[in-house]
């Protein structure tokens, strides 16, 4: 069975600071990995995804993530956050059929002005 662990329930950063959100996955085969963001009172939006190739993948709004097979991780980063980045961020892994996306519990990010 696949699973995702996001160890940080909440992260608070100052505007302009860097951000890293941790994600560890468990999946027996090659994982398909995603980061989604949920803004208040909205549905989820995909930031980026990874399956193969360069382990550093670029996403929208300046986000990037780095895949590590040895560490079973897919951490999300942003060099300089804006107040509008305040949201809940979900890491997710899917099976090879793509019909069962498993999410982590999410990390709530608060960006202080």
């Amino acid at each position: 069975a696949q699973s995702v662990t996001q160890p940080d329930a909440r992260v608070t950063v100052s505007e302009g600071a860097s951000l890293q959100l941790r994600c560890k996955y468990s999946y027996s085969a090659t994982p398909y990995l995603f980061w989604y963001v949920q803004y208040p009172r909205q549905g989820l939006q995909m930031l980026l995804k990874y399956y193969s190739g360069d382990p550093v993948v670029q996403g929208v709004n300046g986000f990037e993530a780095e895949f590590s097979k040895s560490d079973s991780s897919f951490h999300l980063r942003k060099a300089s956050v804006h107040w509008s980045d305040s949201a809940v961020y979900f890491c997710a892994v899917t099976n090879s059929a793509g019909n069962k996306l498993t999410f982590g519990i999410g990390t709530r990010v608060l960006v202080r002005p």
Partner: protein
Amino acid sequence: ETAVFQTPNYHVTQVGNEVSFNCKQTLGHDTMYWYKQDSKKLLKIMFSYNNKQLIVNETVPRRFSPQSSDKAHLNLRIKSVEPEDSAVYLCASSDWGGAYAEQFFGPGTRLTVL
């Protein structure tokens, strides 16, 4: 406008009542999903449909039943709601592109069971 639309936005009801939520996508996708998001933001897949056919049916109580009239619509009916059904129900859709397909989510329907 192309997106995933859900109605209603909110619904408050009593234990034992029947409720029905609607989802429509205008993205031309083949696959649609229902997720449940609890008060702690935990998201779990409930069902997925591809071209009106049930593909995934996670272990959910039998009082939950999805209904698909065509590939653009996937509704969710709950026959006799329980307090633990209080949650946000998110509908999503994707191309039938396998594991790498991005899912597009609606804004959710918040259900409160009194």
